């Protein structure tokens, strides 16, 4: 049975954790906006969105 090991990687400070979380939320929001935008434009353009020149 393996012994329980102490984490020996990089340990983030509270400030680093906070800023990383902020950045992650901002990226998630930006991706969410992009998804909503593509969905909305698909609805607006209707069936024409499928009409593509070969």
């Amino acid at each position, binding site marked *: 049975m393996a012994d329980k090991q102490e984490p020996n990687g*990089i340990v*983030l*400070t509270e*400030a*680093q954790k*906070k*800023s*990383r979380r*902020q*950045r992650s939320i*901002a990226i998630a929001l930006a991706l969410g906006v*992009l998804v909503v*935008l*593509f969905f*909305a*434009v698909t609805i*607006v353009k209707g069936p024409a969105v499928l009409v593509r020149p070969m």
Partner: protein
Amino acid sequence: MSVVDHNAIELSPRISEADVADYIALLKPRVMSLVIFTALVGLVLAPGHFHPVLAFTSILCIAVGAGASGALNMWYESDIDAKMTRTANRPIPRGRVTRPEALTFGMTLAFFSVMTLGILVNWFAGGLLAFTIFFYVVIYTMALKRWTAQNIVIGGAAGALPPVVAWAAATGSLSIEPLLLFLIIFFWTPPHFWALALFRSDDYARAGVPMLPVVAGPDATRLQILLYTLVLVAVAFAPWPLGYFDAVYGVTSLVLGGVMLALAINVYRRREGSEALRATRKLFAFSILYLFGLFATLLLEVVAHAVAPSIW
């Protein structure tokens, strides 16, 4: 045997503490607000019906594209930003964001803004937006800015393109009207930035940027400001007699142009001491109001036409 003694290397990767505000600062929000406004005017002036969702998408992509240009500009210019009082507080000189982070951020935004505009609106507008970002970053920032005193004259084309991109987004083509908007911003840029450069010339000299006051001296700059203002006032007035914009715009252009010209003459005449500094600052501040006033008038004309077409 390993060439590198791994035990001797201290592995201490830099962990970013940059928050969202630092990344927003990379987008140059004040420049972005002017880009959004001028693009909005280009969009509403365009003929025909343009769906509000597509209009919103177009403005968003143009704004993000402008932000990408700002981030890439800060990536490339971090060395001179650190030497200038006006820019020393930007995220890279302050050590909040590294250059590779700014480069990645800028390239990602540039890619997504161009692709989104191309896919969702049209590829002509997407291509124009890509050209605008390329012109600002490669032609202006990398090539012209450190090389010639005409940097902001030629580079001004990048700042003048947003209403053209917006028109292209709405119509899929180009016409005289967006080119008139382009010319107004193009000829507005030199007097605006040279007024700034006159009272920041020490900053530019320290950073080694060949702005006109540093290279040719303040008096030559004052003459150039006056000459460009004369051309600007004429170019901004011309669309009315040529029949492209209405009388309200023509009169507004004449009044605002008169004030702009008077302030440029004041800068040309007052060359010494605090009076000269005050005259330059006044011209710089008014130039922003001038451009805003012209474009706001065009916007209001379109709104008035839409609300009460019989009166107009």
